[in-house]
């Protein structure tokens, strides 16, 4: 007799008996999420590479995505939500995660915490090494892991208890609780049980003509509800981000231009789609010649991706100042080199996901995003539908880093919901996400930099080409930003920089933390070390000597009278630089194969759009019950906008931040706070929040004729205003309630002052820049070519720190990404389309980071604050490269510096 597990599987889930009848092959993760409602179990890769789905089975952490659901029969299965609710150790760990800011976006948090609980049950006071071993299987892309380690080890919390939580207070994230209890709802967590499932059919070829077969017959055979193709796009079958460069079809029409491009989508019930194999979809391919590299794409006779873009050149950016030729001519020394970087994948742990439904003739799209209103703009065009009939509701976003600025799932969801009239959902598979969404631009940069005998820069010329892939996305932004920033934060009087975006049959390159500036910094900062050495000047002092200062024009001719903080950043590194260099010399006095190196590099980044309007609006209202509601539309993708914007608003209004209720970026009720990109939210939306807070404060004070310095004390059903001995109470119930339920309401906008760039890139591209300098200590195993970072010291001029704890979180996370870009990350279409071939740093790769906060107030920033998000990873990779050069004498000009590449370069340089 065959012994078969009954169709019914029974086990205990978080202490209660459950029974279910999984499909053959159904993963435990799917059963937990979809049959048992345990959406605290996150799915990031379905391959055991990310660990987000970690649950305890009989106490042992396993990836629920790798376990047949039937295998859990008879077992005790525990997930984050159950652990936090039932086990004091886990509840305590949740508090510790909050106190350290150890959850940023929160998508990896369930996997991290569940793994940590298993460790803490066995070792209540684990060592750092034990924590790393226990968490080594869970990837995090936001935090840089250090705060997670601190939380698990029970180190003193970084957050403070502060009754007001105003500017400068390192309070816990206001939205942190749901992230540590498993209650946060991300893109894949909001669908209704009856939602149809969408699967996208994608091109397996980089360039191919295709013909679709009998779709009706296919739909009948498969039992699916709908098949979507270009002909189902009701409006314009194009999306994009930059006016004039809206060039990417929702569904390709006749020709696919990159591997992974969507050509159709199939919509069916969850049951049918669980057994759907895209290989059965009727499409015939005719493979066409493709170009993957930029040189090929620019060669005569290369296939052209877009008719109007001759030579596959998408567009270029240009900045010239002074006379670079003459300056290089008269320079005492000139360093030059060609530098190359590859595609970098954002690798957020949450794949793109969402849900849509039609409600009373309107379509509602719920999805993870960095830019809800831009999503709405796109849907308006793609659907050819009245804007008022579309609603975009952002879910929590499990990391973005630039890629979730572009739409991905949104058009598919909206079209499918409208076509079927039923709720629909979609979640990208990891490979699909990696194949089809944007990447960091690969670059090839030729740079020449001169210096005079005193070590002052005498001419900098930059020529870079950037592989923008098959469609424009944010490529034009990269082309424009790079020439503005390629000087680094230095006084460079004679300058010429040109950047071009080149189309290839690769996935579109788009926005990724820094928009091309991290690549440019690699070249410039590497050559700065070479110049300093050739002049016999200390590498840090060389940078300090050339640091941009107040009153000194940038390469765009922009002069800041105040707020230029790079010198302060560099000087802040001086003690660590001297101490670490001395320590490295000691280590290197031995004759082992391990050599220690110390590197330094700097960066700057203009906050907000480049010379373009870039407004944010923040709305707030007071309800009759006394609650103050902040409509905070700045997408919080883990970086902390929900907390920072609220802190700024509370400061301006003069009430404790705990009195605020937050409403997110739902386009029906919250005005446009712009996109979460270009490190603009703290600066631009922060200013709008400040203005809104001030306006609401003025309205309240005016009602009782109170002066500027009066104190507002919100309470139940009323607001009290105290001024000296006088106290007036505004009875809110007596006021008229508006259509939105508010008795008082304000909305204020801020648009940073910029001026257009002329043909030579001269003008005022940004109202403010932020500045940064990093120091990296690392060890190179010269026999194996392996690199082990030992420590980073990071100085960041943030103008005025809104929340120092969140700043540290941004710095540590940015460094992890910069380090990954320097040492291990390279996306190769067709080859590294998963998280075991494409490597991002694990907990064991990330050394301690010391963050030095510099506050050089900015005249335009809210209370002087500057943006930070992207600044962080600009100096990281060059600081790593400079430390490698310090350790080995070898200047690596191609990223990532894998062990094999470093060993080969050392061999060529004669260090066998």
């Amino acid at each position: 007799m065959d012994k078969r597990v009954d169709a019914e599987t029974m086990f205990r889930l978080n202490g209660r008996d459950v029974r279910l009848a999984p499909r053959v092959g159904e993963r435990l993760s799917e059963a937990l999420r979809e049959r048992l409602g345990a959406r605290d179990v996150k799915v990031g890769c379905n391959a055991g590479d990310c660990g987000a789905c970690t649950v305890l089975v009989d106490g042992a952490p396993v990836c629920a995505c790798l376990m047949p659901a039937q295998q859990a029969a008879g077992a005790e299965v525990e997930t984050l939500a159950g652990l936090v609710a039932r086990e004091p150790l886990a509840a305590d760990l949740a508090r510790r995660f909050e106190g350290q800011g150890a959850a940023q976006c929160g998508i990896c948090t369930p996997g991290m915490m569940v793994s940590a609980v298993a460790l803490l049950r066995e070792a209540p006071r684990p060592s750092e090494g034990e924590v790393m071993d226990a968490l080594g299987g869970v990837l995090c892309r936001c935090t840089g892991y250090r705060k997670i380690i601190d939380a698990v080890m029970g180190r003193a919390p970084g957050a403070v208890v502060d009754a007001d939580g105003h500017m400068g207070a390192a309070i816990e994230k206001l939205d942190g609780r749901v992230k540590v209890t498993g209650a946060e709802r991300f893109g894949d967590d909001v669908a209704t049980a009856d939602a149809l499932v969408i699967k996208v059919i994608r091109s397996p070829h980089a360039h191919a003509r295709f013909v679709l077969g009998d779709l009706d017959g296919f739909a009948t055979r498969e039992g699916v509800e709908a098949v979507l193709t270009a002909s189902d796009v009701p409006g314009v079958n194009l999306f994009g981000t930059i006016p004039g460069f809206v060039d990417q079809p929702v569904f390709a029409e006749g020709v696919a231009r990159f591997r992974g491009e969507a050509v159709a989508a199939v919509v069916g019930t969850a049951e049918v789609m669980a057994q759907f194999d895209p290989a059965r979809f009727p499409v015939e391919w005719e493979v066409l010649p493709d170009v993957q590299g930029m040189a090929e794409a620019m060669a005569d006779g290369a296939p052209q991706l877009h008719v109007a873009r001759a030579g596959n050149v998408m567009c270029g950016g240009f900045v010239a100042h002074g006379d670079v030729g003459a300056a290089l001519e008269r320079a005492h020394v000139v360093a030059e080199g060609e530098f190359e970087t590859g595609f970098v994948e954002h690798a957020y742990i949450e794949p793109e996901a969402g849900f849509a439904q039609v409600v009373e003739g309107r379509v509602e799209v719920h999805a993870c995003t960095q830019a809800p209103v831009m999503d709405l703009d796109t849907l308006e065009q793609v659907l050819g539908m009245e804007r008022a009939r579309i609603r975009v509701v952002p879910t929590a976003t499990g990391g973005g880093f630039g890629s979730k600025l572009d739409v991905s799932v949104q058009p598919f969801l909206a079209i499918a919901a409208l076509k079927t009239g039923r709720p629909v959902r979609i979640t990208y598979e990891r490979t699909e996400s990696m194949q089809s969404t944007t990447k960091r631009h690969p670059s090839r940069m030729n740079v020449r930099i001169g210096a005079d005998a005193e070590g002052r820069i005498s001419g900098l010329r930059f020529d870079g080409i950037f592989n923008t892939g098959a469609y424009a996305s944010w490529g034009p932004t990269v082309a424009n930003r790079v020439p503005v920033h390629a000087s680094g934060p230095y006084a460079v009087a004679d300058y010429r920089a040109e950047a071009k975006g080149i189309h290839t049959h690769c996935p579109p390159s788009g926005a990724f933390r820094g928009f091309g500036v991290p690549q440019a910094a690699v070249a410039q900062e590497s050559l700065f070390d070479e110049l300093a050495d050739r002049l016999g000047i200390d590498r840090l002092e060389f940078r300090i000597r050339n640091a941009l200062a107040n009153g000194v024009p940038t390469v765009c001719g922009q002069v800041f009278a105040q707020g230029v903080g790079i010198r302060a950043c560099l000087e802040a590194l001086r003690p660590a630089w001297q101490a670490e260099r001395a320590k490295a010399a000691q280590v290197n006095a031995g004759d082992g194969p391990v050599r220690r190196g110390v590197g330094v590099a700097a960066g700057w980044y203009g906050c907000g759009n480049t010379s373009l309007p870039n407004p944010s609006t923040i709305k707030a209202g007071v309800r009759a019950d006394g609650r103050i509601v902040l409509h905070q539309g700045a997408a919080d993708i883990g970086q902390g906008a929900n907390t920072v914007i609220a802190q700024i608003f509370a400061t301006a209004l003069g009430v404790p931040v705990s009195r605020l209720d937050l409403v997110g970026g739902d386009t029906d009720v919250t005005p446009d706070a712009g996109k979460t990109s270009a490190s603009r939210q703290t600066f631009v939306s922060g200013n709008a929040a400040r203005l809104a807070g001030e306006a609401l404060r003025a309205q309240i004070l005016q009602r009782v004729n109170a002066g500027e310095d009066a104190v507002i004390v919100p309470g139940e059903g009323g607001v009290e205003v105290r001024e000296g001995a006088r106290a007036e109470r505004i009875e809110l119930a007596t006021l008229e309630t508006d259509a939105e339920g508010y008795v008082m309401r304000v909305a204020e906008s801020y648009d940073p002052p910029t001026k257009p760039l002329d043909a030579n890139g001269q003008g005022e591209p940004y109202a403010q820049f932020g500045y940064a300098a990093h120091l990296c200590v690392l060890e190179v195993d010269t026999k194996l070519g392996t690199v082990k970072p030992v420590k980073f010291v990071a100085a960041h001029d943030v103008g005025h720190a809104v929340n120092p704890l969140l700043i540290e979180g941004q710095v540590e996370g940015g460094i992890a990404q910069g380090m990954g870009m320097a040492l291990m990350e390279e996306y190769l279409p067709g080859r590294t389309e998963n998280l075991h071939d494409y490597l991002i740093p694990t907990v064991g790769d990330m050394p301690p980071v010391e963050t030095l906060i510099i506050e050089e107030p900015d005249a335009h920033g809210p209370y002087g604050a500057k943006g930070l998000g992207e600044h962080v990873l600009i100096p990281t990779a060059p600081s790593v490269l400079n430390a490698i050069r310090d350790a080995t004498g070898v200047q690596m000009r191609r990223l990532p510096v894998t062990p094999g590449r470093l060993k080969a370069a050392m061999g060529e340089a004669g260090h066998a």
Partner: protein
Amino acid sequence: MSQIEYFAPGDLGEALDILSRGGVRPVAGGTDFYPGLSAGGPRESLLDLTRIDGLRGIARQDGGWRIGAATRWSDVVRADLPPAFDGLRAAAREVGSVQIQNAGTVAGNLVNGSPAADGVPPLLALGAEVEIASAEGRRVVPLERFIMGVRQVDLAPGEMVVALHLPEPPEGARGAFSKLGSRAYLVISIVMVGVVIARDGAGRIDHARVAVGACSPVARRLPALEAALVGTVGDVAVTAAHLEPLSPIDDVRGSGAYRLEAVAELIGRVVRQANGESCDG
């Protein structure tokens, strides 16, 4: 499409009966099965091996040791084993992550036939033999013959691995293992080395097993190097001739040339480690 089923027998005989009828795919830890599963789910019935009596666990037996096929890598990490198994235990800690070690099985690592399987070099160095069963009977083959190529193992339809058998290591033997990858955890090897070394009373090596993974389609022992090590204190320079069995390829993780260079260095370190010396030089 015929109805597929999920079988989870508790007894090996039943499992082999089910397997003999064909159309079933064995699954244990799932750590290779699911990543390799194509869209639309399995086309075959699944045979869950994790409930079969006697298939999990490590035990001493006549003349050596037996590791049940469904023994998890975390069982290996926790097992009380002599120092000759230190390399195997170190490799167990390097199999993916804790999550993977708690699910993935020793036999699964072998039948997957990956050139970069972490368990294979230390098992080769320990002289492992593979016990294979089918409804018709049992046979035992040395591990080096069992893995025949990339994704190719010596299993006929209806057969499955039931255990590994390891001879008792020489008195005082010590094992060591090292894996070179581009990051700290969850990484596929660029190269890896497993060794088992025993020394005589005078401190000279009298037993040497050196196996290298990720440098050839199937992990290989290096007999010439093993022979050269015997009689020495371990201070043997690794030569090209020693590495002759290897044929590393260029891939995203490293070039073939780099792999040869790195493996020579790594062998020296792992031999010194097994010899009880410091392993950083």
